[in-house]
């Protein structure tokens, strides 16, 4: 029996609701309908009154979550798509993120963002928003790449006393599976060596971990041993594990599905250049989506974002440097 990434998210929410009376879910269509992606399927029935449909009001959804958190609740907000979190941006970055610093009152809210591109999603149903949220102090940003992490990290997100932006990748919903739900997990803030290698380090997160692993497998057939680091959370960012990996391989390729400007890949390279410059045998490289809105047609979309093929090509290029 296996469980998908999406089912893991649903199960984590069911467990959070069952274990903690302070937890409730609030978002568009999350009630009887079970959510646009069915991440809350049957939860409204299993937990009457605790899984609430919200009006199309992302600002008010997050504001209400902050208020409920002040009163000691632990709300989970489902944004229908990560893209639609922008109307709630003000409440996230100015209200939720600043509350503890200003008042010493914690703000334990979890905001789930169905993130990243899928074929045909187009400009407004495909975005990866993690870099924007990571920019603001007071937020934690999680980017699980496996069904196991989707489950354990979502449970940890609910338990954490700070606002958590939980970026769950839509491409992983159905295709990424675990044999069973984990009972133990690495703590948030620790990166994972998803594949060990000695020739080159690929640092990735979310769905790009899976594509990077596939590229590493291809390169293994060509005699190159690629190490893949799964960041798991981008804030906090586990610089130690990244630098230690670069110390082993001497080469760094950062892969992210988001746009390049000021993003996670830039941050990782900045940190390695600052803290581990002498460890590098070649200039650090990065691979992101193209710096345009995300295209609709599959012909365009598959070229817009990094793929197994382009990751492999970038790695081969870096190995030759």
């Amino acid at each position, binding site marked *: 029996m296996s469980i998908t990434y999406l089912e893991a998210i649903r199960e984590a929410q069911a467990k959070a609701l069952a274990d903690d009376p302070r937890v*409730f879910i609030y978002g568009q269509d999350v009630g009887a309908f079970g959510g646009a992606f069915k991440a809350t399927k049957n939860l409204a029935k299993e937990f009457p009154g605790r899984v609430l449909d919200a009006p199309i*009001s992302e600002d*008010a959804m997050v*504001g209400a979550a902050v208020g409920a958190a002040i009163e000691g609740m632990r709300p989970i907000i489902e944004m229908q798509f990560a893209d639609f979190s922008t109307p709630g941006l003000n409440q996230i970055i100015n209200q939720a*993120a600043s509350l503890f610093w200003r008042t010493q009152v914690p703000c334990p809210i979890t905001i789930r963002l169905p993130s990243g591109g899928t074929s045909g999603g187009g400009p407004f149903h495909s975005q990866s928003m993690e870099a924007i949220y990571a920019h603001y102090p007071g937020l934690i940003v999680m980017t699980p790449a496996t069904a196991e992490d989707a489950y354990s990290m979502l449970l940890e997100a609910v338990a954490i006393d*700070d606002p958590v932006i939980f970026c769950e990748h839509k491409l992983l919903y159905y295709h990424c599976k675990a044999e069973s739900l984990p009972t133990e997990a690495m703590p948030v803030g620790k990166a994972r060596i998803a594949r060990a290698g000695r020739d080159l380090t690929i640092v990735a997160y979310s769905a790009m971990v899976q594509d990077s692993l596939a590229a590493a497998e291809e390169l293994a057939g060509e005699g190159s041993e690629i190490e893949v680091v799964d960041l798991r959370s981008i804030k906090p960012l586990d610089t130690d594990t990244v630098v230690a990996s670069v110390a082993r391989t001497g080469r760094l390729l950062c892969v992210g599905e988001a746009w390049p400007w000021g993003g996670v890949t830039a941050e990782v390279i900045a940190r390695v250049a600052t803290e581990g410059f002498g460890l590098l045998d070649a200039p650090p490289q990065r691979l992101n989506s193209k710096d345009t809105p995300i295209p609709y047609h599959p012909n365009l979309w598959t070229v817009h974002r990094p793929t197994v093929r382009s990751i492999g090509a970038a790695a081969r290029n870096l190995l030759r440097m």
Partner: protein
Amino acid sequence: MLQTLESQDALQAALSFRERFVQGFRFMVLARLLDDKMASLYRGGKIHGGVFLGRGQEALSVALGLSLKPGDIFAPLIRDGAGRLAFGEPVLDAVRTYLGSVLGPMRGRDGNVHRGYPRRGLLPMISHLGAMISVVNGMLMARRFKKISGDVGAVSIGDGGTSTGAFHEALNQAAVEKLPLVLVVANNQFAYSTPNARQFACQSLVDKAVGYGVTGRMVDGTNLEACLITLGQAVADARQGGGPQLVVAELLRLCGHGEHDDAHYIAASLKASPAGRDCLQVAEEFLWRKAWADEEATKHFRQEAAQLVEEAVAKVQREPAPNPYRQNWCALASRHLSERFESCPPVQPL
């Protein structure tokens, strides 16, 4: 004279109203004198950032504060000094926040009107208008989850704030959830310098109530008597399950947006109009007329308030400012998750 039970109730109600009016007037005086003192300290270069006065809005604000009870929630806006005092905020908190004392509720991390204690139901506003309404909604929803009933959440906003998306989303949300929310709009005719005519096109802001499916009321914001009655009724209705209440008060801001603003754009004709009356003066004349207090008594109220303010300022001026080298530079409650490069020193006990 033989009193019937009914007339006894009326007498009690009248007495209670008289007491509330006098109490309200005294908070208004205190708020005005506190404002004057902050303005004076600002002009003397003793305050960092801005100073924002509630001059002209005291009657409305105090009526809201007095209508709430302990356990209720209050999200004041920038001109709610009187309402804050009536809700129980100490004068010291205001002075400490303006002067950045480390002993204040915000400990120098936020200033002026951005102060409060969320867990005690007094919310420290963020600057983005309309954003506090949904936070109060969420607090009320949480209490409903916890089966706590009978509490009211009150939010203040201005005419300008009604144009924000956050106002719309949150008032609609409160209506959908049938929350005991009292949303008080102080239409002081200007949002900074922008007049009503450039802010909204409906005849009256109270017309919005019907669109959201909530109860709407208008009140003369310069008249403490009217404010006490209207706000009292709105809060009572919300408390009794009547759903969200929108109260729109007409008044004039008798100062600039902040003390940096000379408000030259406010026409003399508007100042001379009924909305331009000074609510403090109106309330004082009402007291004299009703013989609920004489000139000697109101003079005494002023002296008492002035002494409170002076004592608070003298005390706070001797208090320490925040020390950047002993600051806990960590924005997370989960300190173990803050990144090592941001190295958080140990928290200093407050």
